[in-house]
């Protein structure tokens, strides 16, 4: 019997190593798997590369992971942290590397990794500082930048409901980067608010089919509090 449920956050994170590239879903405080991020801290992991839209909020989750200096490099579109100066302090001190990627290019690079597309052209960032050093090409009279797929060793995903095959649905704007990141990592780990029996989620409405999911842990934490 396929059963991707594990009993604890520690079990869910088993095998992740220092230096790993971790994809972290969420947009603002919504749909971010904070319990799994806390688990990375508890596991003592260091030297991580984190891919996320933002660099965390408040003093929890991703912001705390940064404060504890577990992150070598962050790849994100908007690193500012509301109610915390941890990222800015580290950045000014030269203690964290930052790769700023336009939000849509970030989403598409992750999607490309999941879809087996090693590189693609986009007009986003063409003619700007963020295209410096990148290959560009004129196609039908418009300028495009070549962007590479962005692969994760691990994806940390938050779902609203999951079954034992790892089929997932999300809640409202909690969906955001989660389904894309789920496809882009070698090991996809999910924290879910709710459990479903196999077959209980309508097959027409499954957003992330279980093929993209390796482990699921049940964390019924309630609503995002920020």
């Amino acid at each position, binding site marked *: 019997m396929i059963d991707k449920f594990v009993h604890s956050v520690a079990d869910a994170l088993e095998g992740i190593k220092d230096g790993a590239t971790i994809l972290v879903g969420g947009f603002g405080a919504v749909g971010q798997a904070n319990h799994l991020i806390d688990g990375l801290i508890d596991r003592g992991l260091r030297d991580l590369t984190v891919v996320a*839209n933002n660099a965390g909020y408040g003093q929890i989750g991703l912001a705390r992971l940064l404060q504890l200096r577990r992150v070598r490099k962050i790849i994100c579109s908007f690193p500012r942290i509301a109610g915390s100066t941890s990222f800015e302090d580290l950045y000014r001190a030269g203690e964290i590397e930052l790769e*700023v990627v336009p939000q849509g290019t970030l989403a598409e690079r992750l999607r490309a990794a999941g879809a087996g597309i090693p590189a693609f052209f986009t*007009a986003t960032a063409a003619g700007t500082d*963020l295209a410096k050093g990148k290959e560009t090409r004129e196609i039908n009279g418009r300028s495009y930048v070549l962007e590479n797929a962005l692969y994760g060793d691990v994806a940390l995903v938050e779902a609203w409901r999951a079954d034992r095959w790892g089929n997932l649905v999300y809640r409202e704007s909690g969906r955001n980067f989660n389904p894309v990141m789920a496809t882009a990592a070698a090991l996809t780990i999910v924290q879910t608010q709710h459990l479903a029996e196999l077959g209980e989620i309508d097959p027409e409405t499954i*957003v992330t089919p279980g093929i993209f999911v390796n482990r699921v842990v049940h964390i019924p934490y309630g609503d995002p509090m920020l």
Partner: protein
Amino acid sequence: MKSENNFGKWTPLDRGGLARRVAQDIPEGWYVNLGVGVPTQVADHVPQGREVVFHSENGILGLGPAPMADKIDRWLVNAGKQYVTLVRGGSFFHHADSFTMIRGRHLDLCVLGAFEVAQNGDLANWSTATPGAAPAVGGAMDLAVGAKRLWVVMDHTTKDGRPKLLRKCTYPLTAPACVSRVYTSLAVLDVVPEGFRVVEMVPGLSFNELQARTEAQLVQGDANGGK
């Protein structure tokens, strides 16, 4: 607030007035993404009964107004991380699909704020290149190249009176030649080959007064005195 000058009296639009002015020009049926700040307020000023569908980068079509404090849904935020609502007919989707809508030219309009706009349509709205500050771009570059039309909403000059409509941007570009129209506190201007064409000015303001507050080349438009 009335501003005085050598020739007469005129009133710049305040933030609400600017948002209202932009909202007037959005026809029914358009799909529209609104940037943070004044652009976000545009949604509140669309005339009742006119159906305009608002998009948010984080996977929402059909954004509705902010909820009452006791009706907040913590799972429903817009791209500015403010709580919002969803209208009837709205939908949720993931980030790659959301930027398919943006990059794939499916949005009829994007309205953004700006530091500077150049007369060839260049936009600078993401970085002031402050040494030591971490850059942060969000979805601005994707929106700038992707929407069918890009309108900018901003004060006509900086707080200390420097022009924001320039011959050439001084800050790092968000995208080259992407802006089609600018709504400022003083005027509505279209980007045309000769410069900014003045479509409309606040009452009492003259073309020469506007040009005096503008580094870029202005050209008189049909709607405001003709050429």
